């Protein structure tokens, strides 16, 4: 148990690479939610700034990488897009491990996708590591005419589940970037909380004779 615990802890803090690496941190993020809510569209909008109205349901799983800069730090986001169809659900949960953030998405024009949020949330709690941060996103807010899930219900559910909440549109590029950046910020906040606690020790303590020297720790990069 100690073993897995240790690696779990590491990944929670992000991957700080050595200085010759091409990033300072890497966060693994998953987008989950029912089929056709717009997960793939959302990711493509964010990573490639593109959108297609055609629906090609995702098979299995894939990821895209996007490097962003926050507070002079290069943060590499490894964003996994999962298949929402019920029959693939168990496959995708295998990829929950190691994830530091989740975007849990529903479609504001689709009641069923909203009703499934609770289940997805349970899924996260069951298969991911503790402390993974979750953002609830009501997508397709451009389709106000067809809305069946009021913003208020989304907000309440998010509050109930302890998540933050956004309404967004992959099509009209509303709140897409903001969603990812907020998620990154939440992860960073969590991280710097731990760093706050951890910082003096590692720099200050050289007395543990049995332990190897450590390189200087990263500073509170993520007070972003």
């Amino acid at each position, binding site marked *: 148990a100690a073993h897995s615990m240790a690696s779990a802890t590491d990944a929670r803090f992000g991957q*700080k690479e050595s200085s010759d690496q091409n990033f300072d941190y890497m966060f693994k993020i998953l987008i989950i939610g029912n089929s056709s809510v717009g997960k793939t569209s959302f990711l493509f909008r964010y990573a490639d700034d593109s959108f297609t109205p055609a629906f090609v349901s995702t*098979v299995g799983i894939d*990821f895209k990488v996007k490097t962003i800069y926050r507070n002079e730090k290069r943060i590499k986001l490894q964003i996994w897009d999962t298949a929402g169809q019920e029959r693939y659900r168990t*496959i995708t949960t295998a990829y929950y491990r190691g994830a530091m953030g989740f975007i849990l998405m529903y479609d504001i024009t689709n009641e069923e996708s909203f009703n499934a949020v609770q289940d997805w949330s349970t899924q996260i709690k069951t298969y991911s590591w503790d402390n993974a941060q979750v953002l609830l996103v009501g997508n397709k807010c451009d389709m106000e005419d067809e809305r069946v899930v009021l913003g208020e219900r989304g907000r309440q559910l998010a509050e109930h589940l302890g998540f933050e909440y956004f309404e967004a549109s992959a099509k009209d590029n509303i709140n897409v970037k903001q969603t990812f950046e907020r998620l990154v910020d939440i992860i960073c906040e969590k991280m710097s909380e731990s760093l706050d606690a951890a910082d003096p020790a590692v720099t200050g303590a050289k007395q543990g004779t049995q332990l190897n020297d*450590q390189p200087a720790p990263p500073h509170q990069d993520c007070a972003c």
Partner: protein
Amino acid sequence: MMNRWDKEQSKSKRSPQTTRMPERAELVDALRCKLQEATEWPDPDYLRAVTSDVGKLLSSFSVPSACERNRNVSMGTEVDLEAKALYPEDAPMDMVPLSCQGQGNHLFEAASVSLLGDSSLSAELQVRTMVEMLLHKQYYLKGMIDSKIMLQAARFSLCTEESAARMDQLPMAILEAIFDADVKATCFPGTFSNMWHIYALASVLQRDVYSIYPMSNMKIRPYFNRIIRPRARAGSACQSQTLHVMWAGESLSRSVFRPQYFAPVVPVSTLHCPSSGEALPRNTLELLNMDPDISYSMLREKYSITKSTFYRWKRQSWEHRQKAATRYEAKQYLQQCFSAGSFLPLQQFRTRFPEVSRSTYYTWKHEMLLGAGVRVPGLDAGIPGANENQSPLSGGSENTESSKLHPRPGFPRPFNSQRSPSMQLVKSFLRNCVSLNMCPPYKSFRKTYPWISRSTYYNWRREAMTRVALGPKDSATGQIGNTLVGLGDLQLPSLYKSRAGSDLRSPFLPLCGSKSNPSPLQRTEREEAKRRVQKWRMPHSVFRVRYRTISSSTYFLWRRAAGHQGAGLRQQRREGAGLRACGETGVSLDRRQHLVAASTCLRSGMFSLLPAPAKTFNVTSLSKAEAKLFLQQRFESNTFPTFKEFSGFYPLTPRSTYYMWKRALINGMVLTDY
């Protein structure tokens, strides 16, 4: 905050072995960056082109192997006891899984350690494996003899237990998509490797890889427990050696195992290679030698040695210390294995600890069994050096009498000399010994039963072994072939082997407190569940998945109970404070000892009275144990306190100790076993 990646990197850069090839490490780093960047391009052909270039560069130099650099397991590497407890009987006997750190499920770290003894090569193996998978995708998915088996294994790893049946139909197109994603992910840190990575890894190493899988999940085990052949094989003899890695993780029940990470597996002999000197986890000794001024309290914190032992060691010469430490280590190790549910066979024990004699081994074994509360009929008789224990064959009521007859020292005779027991009794004694894997060698046997001939002894023994082999259904596995193994090297009956041994008690072995009690496994599981619910506040959903056999109402009951007593940590503190108060009045017992003893008992599936509580009570050591527990839990819950906060709770603990513990935690050590 450190992470493993950083550490491994910097460690490997410092290690003398790798300083010879800093450029190599740098090159690998650069190539990995290139690959990572290439994954960001929408066009998969670009990634392919870059990978192909990287592949060409990498093929200009070969993977180092243990032949070129003598493999010594690096200092501080320890046996992974959890993995060891899961190590299957059909895997090579003279090897052990080691603990190794890394990110994701660290297949590459494990492979590097198995290959070279340290993790210096993990990044390179990782990059090479990615290249191999990407450039030879068709071979792996369709072209191998093993393709179907590999894909089936991939299917199984992608599903949770309950969906295994449905996964059979997972179409090839999806598997291929998942393969692609997995390949891309392989150039990033923290990747989770799958069976197909092992296939590619075998090709990278150009040698067989023995993928060792615990004796669980029997339906799918054959897909994972196999020798993986490389795509092409190297010519040189040294490279034809098989590399071993093991699937390790959590044993959810006797038959269900959840893989979580990979462990390197190395020959026991490499752990003890004289030139490495430090290969043994001789931590205590190491500490003493590195820091002669180390205080008793510090050592005690880490290794819970007694004060007298510590001071004895301090007085002694280095050689003496070494000896004592080895003995201590050996005993601890044996005890740990025992607690983990398996008893190290003599042969393995002797390979690890050649300095410790065979008779000492048996004495300890005996001690542990008795300590764990197993009544071992007739055990003492043949065990040289066993002492102070009553003669079991003389039966309950006569115990006192016989111990009067044979007060001490030396080992008591099973019968007093006036009463020569029937042959039948001696035979059954021997049989019991065999069933407990404690068959005395003929030499000792003869001392006790001089009237029984050598050939009779061997005949009986053979008979007993066959009986054991055919005996209780479940213990049959792995026993039959053992008749040929040397004396005392038999595997223990299944009772000791599995934590779930409760339902396969050996007929020869009365377990204390059996029958009406819940099985040890259930007890352990419940304890664990309760702890997770109360102290770690495990969510209900997780609880339901993890502990199917425990009802939700129990969950809420525990939760409520915990709630009444305050949140987990506060609860801990309160308990500690309570004990401290008691301690001052001199009635309490060392809580930590108690817990350790209790958990050892539970884990070994035996019940017994706990050792008598220590009369002298050390307030400082208790609060230290408590402080460690506190820190560990806060670390695990990711809310590690600052020194200021910490010292608010534990004003007696010096700042330096706090930082020492903190470093230990950051380094992945466990301060206390709860």
